[in-house]
């Protein structure tokens, strides 16, 4: 036993915002090992400049945003290639946002509708001023040259 034991101290200190009550800065950061699992082929498709959706062979529903199993019957879906041109179903231009996207404001979000596809696809619209975007505007997909394996690997521009 060491009766003079000391735990070594560090000099990193604490960021203090207030003393009554005491408010300190607490840092928190995580790296996840995130698997896209059954959605993986969609992201691989983006790297190959393809937009993949899901089709339920039993219900004949084609989903513009992929899902491994059908929302209506629960059956397994098949991968299908979506058209790369569609129309703006709805839109907004964000002037504020979450911290991760603040630097990118203002940006325009759209839901894209495709002929013959039953559901919509969320994406960004580039190349238009906020007052130029409208429902029904024809748009086409454009892909990042170097894929980041994120849904933002594809975005839309006026067709």
């Amino acid at each position, binding site marked *: 036993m060491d009766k003079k034991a000391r735990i070594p101290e560090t000099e990193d200190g604490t960021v203090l915002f207030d003393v009554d009550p005491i408010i300190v800065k607490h840092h928190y950061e995580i790296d996840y090992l995130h698997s896209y699992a059954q959605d993986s082929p969609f992201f691989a498709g983006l790297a190959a400049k393809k937009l993949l959706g899901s089709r339920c062979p039993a219900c004949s529903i084609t989903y513009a*945003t992929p899902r491994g199993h059908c929302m209506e019957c629960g059956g397994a879906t098949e991968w299908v290639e979506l058209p790369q041109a569609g129309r703006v179903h709805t839109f907004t231009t964000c002037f504020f946002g979450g911290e*991760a996207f603040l630097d990118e404001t203002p940006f325009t979000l759209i839901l894209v509708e495709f002929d013959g596809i039953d559901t919509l696809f969320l994406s960004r619209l580039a190349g238009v001023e906020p007052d130029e975007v409208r429902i029904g505007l024809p748009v086409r997909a454009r892909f990042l040259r170097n894929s980041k394996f994120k849904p933002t690997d594809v975005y839309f521009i006026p067709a």
Partner: protein
Amino acid sequence: MRPVYMISGGITRFAKAHPEKDFRWMVKEAFDYALADVPALDRRQIDGSVCSYFSDHFTRQLMAGAMVQDYLGLNPRPSRRIEGGGATGGLCFQAAWEAVASGRMELCLAMGFETMSRVNTWKGNEFIAMASDTNFDYPVGGFYTGYYAMMVQRHMHEFGTTVEQMARVAVKNHANARHNPYAQRPARLSVEDVRSAPMVATPLTLLDCCQMSDGAAVALIASAAMAEKLGATPVRITGVGCGTDAMRMADRPHGRVPLLPHEREADYVRLSYPGVHSFRAGRTAAALAYRMAGISEPGRELDFVELHDAYTSSEIQTCEDLGLCRYGEGGRFVESGAPYLTNVDYGLTFSGDQRWPYLPVNPSGGLLACGHPVGATGLMQAVFGFWQLQGTIERHLGDGTLQLPGPKRGLIHSHAGTGTYITVSILERA
């Protein structure tokens, strides 16, 4: 199932930040208020609790509900956490109803809180956006105001809803809140004030959106025998309903409207539903709650509605889901003046359209003006609804302006995600 009653409620003042109290003490403050309101009630008579809070990120503490249970001195009785995004509070209320209706408990505490001030607003927006699909939606620019802005753009396109009609909702709710000392942002506003506020996501301005808040609320839910034993002035919970929809609004079907008893197929021949303009989960929750409560014409059989107006647009959309007016009429319903209190001066003129009877919506000020500490919000609505039906608004608020004359039946509505979980509960004077 046996009859279930709410016998007391309590809330803290909702504020941007309450750094002087942690979540445990905030809940205790609301709890002590609710206990004091039923003098015969002893804490030991509470059989257990359900606790609602939305985000572990905001709390930076897992099992925070267990810490509240501990702080209130309710150990070792049963408790569990209820979580479902923005509808967390409404789900918690219904979980307490279930505990009593099933006979598992005679007296159940529903308690909820959120401490959103622990991060800045931008980080808070990010936490909230984590409640959207993190593979497909969040990374594209995850921002709930953006999602709701897209939904209302489509509502405007389908139905001709205007930004001025939306602004009128903000005027109403902020003006009502001037008589509610628990509210975070009471204000006398004009339509022009709302439209000239900073644009957040077109067409929603800062005043079309609720704020982030710290706060807590509780509701005590009891059996008939317990309510009688305690000599409380109970309010009966006569209907509960809950609905769900796809997490990603892009996945919503474009099909047919599930009709309420007072609607006809012919009302909606060309409407593709719900698309992104309406909330199928809200319609489902309402239909279930109305059926249980025996309501066939909600616009005429309800005396007030406290609904989840996180955005002015979602109040308009929700009035339609609840069948207070038909789909597409929400904007004109607001313009008619039907949902405005007759004894509050809003500085507005109304169309006077007589299609809809007088039915105050969000007399408390709603989320827009009271604030939205997520886990507490649905319980706050229960507390305001309970006080309305008890006729005790003046005693609890120190101002009787918001007290409706002898209301018999009210509706509370709690809403998550882009309409992903929605609850509707019906409260009636016993």
